[in-house]
């Protein structure tokens, strides 16, 4: 199991994705076609800023911030 093969697991509600590491949190959202204004990115329960680089093996949980009604 090489480090490079380790993907990043991304979870949003009941949806999950696997992406390549090495991109920033903001690029990750863009990559998934999500508007970075409408989501927060957390890693191990901690909020991370836009420019934080996603590492191999990370589990990323996205928090949707828009609520309505």
């Amino acid at each position, binding site marked *: 199991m090489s480090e490079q093969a380790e993907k990043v697991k991304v979870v949003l509600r009941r949806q999950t994705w696997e992406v390549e590491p090495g991109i920033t949190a903001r690029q990750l959202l863009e990559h998934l076609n999500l508007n970075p204004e409408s989501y*927060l990115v957390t890693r191990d329960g901690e909020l991370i*800023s836009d420019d934080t680089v996603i590492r191999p093996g990370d589990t990323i949980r996205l928090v949707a911030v828009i609520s309505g*009604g």
Partner: protein
Amino acid sequence: MRCRKCRQKAVINMRQHRLALCRDHYVEWFQQQTARTIKKYKMIRRDEPVLVAVSGGKDSLALWDVLLELGYRADGFYLRLGIDEGIGYSDESYAKIKQFVAQHPGTRLHVVDVKETYGETIPEVARRVRRGRGKPCSVCGLIKRHEMNRVAYELGYPVLATGHNLDDEAAVLFSNTLNWQVGYLARQYPVLPGREGFARKVKPFCRFYERETAAYALLRGIDYMYEECPFSVGANTIYYKELLNTLERERPGAKLHFYLSFLRAKEKEGLFADWEEPSVELHACERCGQPTSAPGRCAFCRLWPEDVLEQPHESFVPLTLVEGA
């Protein structure tokens, strides 16, 4: 990205303010900004008890937390709507609120259960009165407004605070502008004065983006209700918020500017200042006393059968929970 104040690693970057902050400095900034908004719009006096309308969502629980941190005597009000729809929406929201209260000893929560008090849940009333094309939102809004006013009045709170954020306000502004709803535009403001004994209404979070209130809740470890009310699916507000965020993504600060320049135009340039309310005479509802334009009873009191409204006064008194006092 580094925190502007201490150079530690930032957890959030607010492009519209060109401001990145670490956890501690973000929490501090957020509380100070709320205090500034309260002061700027003269929302709450130091000696006034505040009733915070809580839904269990991020905005209202974050607001309650900040007001307590700022030293206000802030108590909660929760209306149990009885919305289940297979996901236990209301039960789970209530559980989040009770958990918040348990973590803040001495704070008070006033609860009105719509079904216990008036005999029907929100979806049940909506089905009976057939208002609002299969969605209970119009009945729900009417009941919420009425009960907030009533409870604040009966329990003697001069101020009622809600967790509306800038995205909420900008979405309403956008929708009212698309339709040139002059009456609504003339009234939209972060603070609405009270009248005839009814509480002043304030929105201390009106200058925060929705992602900022969510970030605050997250960083403070506030466990909020993440699932949306099942009836909010397809709501116009959500659509307008997404449109505004599309704009914001390309032009950081566009959303902030849209709302703040509206407020500035009202404050400095007299936008809508001489707009006069078409002379609908407001008078007190003959049953509950809340202001209404219809003669006789208000829309709320017209929702219910007579025997419901004639219950003894005790049945309308909210249940008050105080944890660990």
